[in-house]
């Protein structure tokens, strides 16, 4: 009986000690330190661009021991085109859970959210913007025209063309391009695909004339000579094997068309200021790390552009205003 009693005490102490230890960790250090698993929501499927981005950051944070040895639980929440996950995060009540909740948030998430729901950036705490991506137009190997200028001449002669691209950001860029060129959406029409890879498939098969893609998705095809970049949708030319593509102002009497696609992170609105500062700094540390530059930015040909809490907040706010204005809301 005594033994059982002793065992009970030992077990009790063993169970209680970590609780105190944790309490101490929280109060002992200044500000916020993660004290439990971090739930990180991604509103697209595993394996896609956003998912890779998220897991990459989580991996670097874990490797660099930025999160007090806690674990990231990446949850892919794809219901309602991602709107359900975003709404859920925006509604997390304050407290410890809110301080341990993150949401991957890109321009490709922000635009449809504003368009299709009443959810707004004001319902979140912006944490950081990590990187910016831009697009180019490419032709396939069997294309009749070798440059964007030739396409424009053909359009002037009454030809119509089709650009294939992905959802969200690509559509917005396409609309900017058509507007700047001063032509109708019939003269160059756009086909929305679920993913850029589908768009590339259709240009490789010769079914459409042009494809819009970010550098990463098209890279291998450029190397293999299956795709050729003919227009940089950017203020300046790209580098490396994309350097041959001129910007729009080089092609003719137009302004450059650029619609930067950003990748960021937000948290529930109810996240405490200390926690938000902690996370913003953690993301900054990732952004400055060599791993991030080599394994993500350089590999996928993005531009590293870190914006901290305040800056990201102002940036996303501005993006939302622009999107709303474009929608006439």
């Amino acid at each position, binding site marked *: 009986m005594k033994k059982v009693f002793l065992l009970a005490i030992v077990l009790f102490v063993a169970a209680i000690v970590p609780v105190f230890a944790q309490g101490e960790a929280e109060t002992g250090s200044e500000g916020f330190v993660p004290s439990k698993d971090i739930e990180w929501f991604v509103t697209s*499927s595993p*394996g896609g661009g956003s998912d890779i981005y998220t897991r990459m950051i989580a991996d670097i944070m874990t490797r660099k021991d930025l999160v007090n040895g806690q674990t990231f639980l990446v949850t892919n*929440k794809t219901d309602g085109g991602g*709107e359900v996950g975003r709404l859920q995060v925006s509604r997390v009540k304050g407290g410890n859970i809110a301080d341990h909740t993150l949401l991957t948030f890109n321009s490709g998430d922000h635009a449809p959210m504003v368009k299709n729901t009443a959810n707004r950036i004001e319902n979140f705490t912006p944490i950081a913007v990590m990187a910016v991506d831009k697009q180019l137009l490419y032709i396939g190997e069997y294309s009749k025209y070798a440059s964007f200028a030739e396409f424009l001449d053909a359009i002037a002669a009454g030809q119509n063309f089709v650009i294939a691209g992905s959802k*969200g950001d690509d559509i917005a860029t396409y609309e900017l391009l058509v507007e700047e060129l001063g032509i109708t959406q019939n003269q160059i029409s756009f086909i929305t695909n679920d993913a850029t890879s589908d768009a590339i498939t*259709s240009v490789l098969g010769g*079914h459409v004339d042009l494809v819009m893609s970010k550098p990463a998705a098209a890279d291998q095809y450029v190397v*293999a000579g299956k795709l050729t970049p003919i227009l940089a949708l950017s203020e300046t030319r790209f580098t490396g094997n994309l350097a041959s593509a001129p910007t729009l102002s080089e092609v003719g009497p137009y302004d450059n068309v650029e619609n930067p696609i950003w990748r960021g992170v937000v948290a529930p609105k109810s996240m405490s200021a200390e926690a938000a500062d902690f996370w913003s700094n953690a993301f900054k540390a990732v952004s400055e790390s060599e791993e991030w530059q080599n394994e993500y930015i350089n590999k996928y040909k993005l531009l590293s552009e870190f914006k901290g809490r305040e800056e990201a907040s102002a940036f996303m706010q501005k993006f939302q205003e622009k999107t709303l204005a474009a929608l006439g809301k």
Partner: protein
Amino acid sequence: MENLLHLFEGFSILFTFQNIIVTMFGAVLGLLVGAMPGIGSLAGVALLLPLTFKFNPTTAIIMLGALYYANMYGGAFSSILIGIPGDGPAVMTMMDGYPMATQRNRPGQALLTSNLSSFIGGFIGMVILTFMGPLLADIGLKFGPAEMTALLLVAMTSIGWLVGENPTKGVLLTMFGILLASMGMDTLSGYPRYDFGNIYLLGGIPFVPFVIGMVGFSQVMRLMSERHKETKISVDKLSIKDSMITLHDFKRLFFPAIRSGFLGTFVGVLPGAGATTAAFMGYAVQKSFKSEEPMGSGAIEGIAACEAANNGAAAGAFAPLLALGIPGSGTGAVLLGGLMMWGLNPGPLLFTNSPEFAWGLIASLFLANVITLMIAWGVIPFLVKILSVPTRLMIPVITVICIVGSYSTSNSMYGVLIMFISGVLGYILNRTGYSTAPAVLSFVLAPLLESNMRKAFIISQGSLGIFFEKPISLVFMLILLVILLFPAGRLVLTKLGVLKGKKN
């Protein structure tokens, strides 16, 4: 010949202790994941992916390839034994597999039929992949929106084989399936459709919960009304020997499996059409051939046709993935994401830059095919025991499986709700003499048809000519025309006395 040499090189890479172990591990896991309703290859590969980052890429893809491939075997288990498809491709297996196991009292033979046909279909797919991988990928590229539209229209007519005795009811349910599939975000314009202001409906009706409910949970409800009936299945047949099929059975499965293996491989190569579509088409094509017993009543031909097709498709889907870096399915997309994370560049240069990787993977598919067949064969006697569990105990167990499966597709109760609603609906439809198969098939095909057709019209600026100008789509349109006019033509010819009206 050169390809054969490459394949042998692939085998030499494969045959290390570590790689064989991971192939076996992948195969076992694939069987399990496939057998669990709702958790298909997509979830399995996605869950396992993070684990593989520490491996070298070849070992990692060998494991995932084996998992993906074995999954096509596993899906059939629950279809045949409990009447709930383990994953999308296994929906059609249920049509004949479940009756064969329960009504014809040949569960072991049904499982073995499915395993052997999977093996044959997969083997055909792999041989084609080995010798014509890049060529196959190029053929896939030729299928643009216009060609896909024409092909899908032909595929849609195959619903005609599934409508059952009452064509009106069949057509009605086909339309119902199309209507349900059109809910959610419009993929081309991004506008919400039939979302009724509900944020969940923005994403549409998820396929897996819908199918689990429609064909699975509706079965559970039927079982509830029959719960006091004692199970009639004798379970003394527990040895592998007793689940052997006869030579006659093998003859019945062989030709449908060969036919479907080729068909499935081809469908797997096409952009956007995966193993599920392949299984549907394999089954529908089989319907137009002779079968010894009527299809849908437990015919061996039915099981063979769809199992061989989905395994063929699983192998075929690797052609565009490896040769061009184009994923043919959701699972393919996850594998592609994996390739990038392992530091490889998927794309047209993969065969040139990392041949050991590409050929190692193809070789591992061959090995996985053999290993999975052996494991699947070996577990048949144990699996068959499931049937001896009394119905009243099976009901709660299957219900839990249905719930877990539909929850896991999007990690939310929304899937569970959809599963229950479509389950009740499926039950009512079954009771009132409607077959749910047309609804499920049109639910799968309609979104593909819609997006391809609209893309084709954008390209042609609204002209129908696009379907008749290109040779491939023209051929399919002609086939479609023949299929549509055939019944009318036959009627006319019979009336005129040219035909004796005894066909079929």
